[in-house]
């Protein structure tokens, strides 16, 4: 190729960060049908896919929150740049404290955002992806309202996804977009889609939600 301009140096100022919190159901029912193993495999896929894309690897920042046990919410490690993200291995058992887990996710995001603002780093609208196969065993209504309000204020984008027999009405209360159902147990497709969503530096008009790729690779279409 001719027309090569010699000696051009490109700076890299693309430091807009894409925050992702995964809020993952590890209640006892996730042991059925090998769901927890499929979820763990899905997380590994996410790790690989994020690292495979130079922009996502540099800009993505991930936190995993699991909930289960004796109504316990566990933060699986620290916020991690996508390039350093190692998928945790989750173990299922116990209750479904979904409300507390979502409360934790909202708090974590606000905390992370204030740290970034202080450091002069810009960020895109954070994504909370909630995955559950059941219904909450704790108080969830108030935090669901907060999630929807946070979405309305463009502070966060909540994706609520039901697995199997999940109570989709309750999950849908966490997002203005309602909930989607995972078709079959397509965790891998879901996480590939999620990594693509993180990759897409998609922009939306003020007041609108960020447009993401079609979900037909993993979502169960309503009938």
């Amino acid at each position: 190729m001719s027309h090569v301009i010699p000696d051009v140096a490109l700076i890299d100022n693309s430091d807009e960060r894409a925050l992702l919190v995964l809020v993952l159901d590890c209640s006892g029912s996730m042991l059925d049908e090998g769901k927890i193993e499929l979820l763990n495999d899905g997380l590994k896929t996410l790790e690989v896919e994020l690292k495979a894309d130079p922009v996502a690897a540099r800009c993505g920042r991930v936190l995993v929150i699991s909930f289960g046990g004796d109504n316990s919410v566990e933060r699986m490690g620290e916020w991690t740049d996508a390039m350093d993200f190692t998928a945790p291995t989750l173990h299922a058992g116990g209750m479904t404290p979904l409300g507390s887990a979502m409360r934790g996710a909202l708090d974590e995001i606000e905390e992370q955002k204030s740290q970034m603002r202080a450091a002069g780093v810009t960020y895109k609208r954070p994504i909370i992806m909630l995955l559950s196969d059941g219904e909450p065993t704790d108080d969830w209504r108030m935090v669901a309202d907060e999630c929807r309000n946070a979405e309305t204020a463009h502070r966060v984008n909540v994706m609520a996804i039901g697995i199997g027999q999940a109570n989709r009405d309750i999950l849908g209360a966490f997002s203005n977009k309602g909930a989607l159902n995972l078709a079959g147990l397509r965790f891998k497709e879901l996480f590939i889609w999620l990594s693509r969503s993180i990759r897409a530096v998609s922009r939306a008009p003020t007041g609108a939600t960020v447009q993401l790729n079609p979900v037909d690779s993993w979502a169960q279409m309503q009938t």
Partner: protein
Amino acid sequence: MAWKVFFATATGRTHQQDGVPCQDSGGYLVRDGILVASVCDGAGSARAGGEGAGLFAALLPERVAAQFPSGPPALEDEARAALARALGEVRDGVATQAAGRDLVLADFACTLIGCIASGEGGWFFHVGDGYGASRGRGGEPGAISRPENGEFADETYFVTDEAWADHLRLTPISPPGRGGVIGLLSDGVAPFAIDRARSGFFAPFLDPVLAYLAGVDEAAGNEALAHLLAGERALEISADDKALLLAIAT
């Protein structure tokens, strides 16, 4: 003052992967020593954002030039009023096209960074993200028009918004002098061409580019710029579509 104008676009990696064409566009004209130029970035979230960018970028220079037959005014109020008229006309034109296709203006959402300049100086006019930057003949920094984003970097304002006039920002450009340069950059170009302090061009980027462009005609220069924007390093730094317009005063 004469102007040598170079312009190129490149499709970003995200759109390459999805098989979507570049959503950035640009347009310019030079008449009686007056340069009018625009770069528009179509909203990925709009139904026809890329098309909107193409329409705005193509229609705008003529409409703006018509408002300023004797060149850019020195007074901001005067410049703003005339630019608002020109942009209003372009918006009306695009809205008419939209209506003919059962679409609305918002379906053509795009950002806008433009300039009108003569040897006496001029104005950047800006709605949304992207950058305008100028530099004097000796490399001294000139004007900078920075992006206006919402709380998040992926939220911006569009020339198609209802409140567009509230977000129309003007920045004065000082007389460029021969060898001075005015640049319009979409947000896919700024991350590697604007310095870390966001104060102007990143000199190690611009200097070699200008040195090269000084020795070629516009067609060859455009090809070289396109090659640069589509290069591996540029694609790595920003996944966004890219548009770069450089006008050199001669």
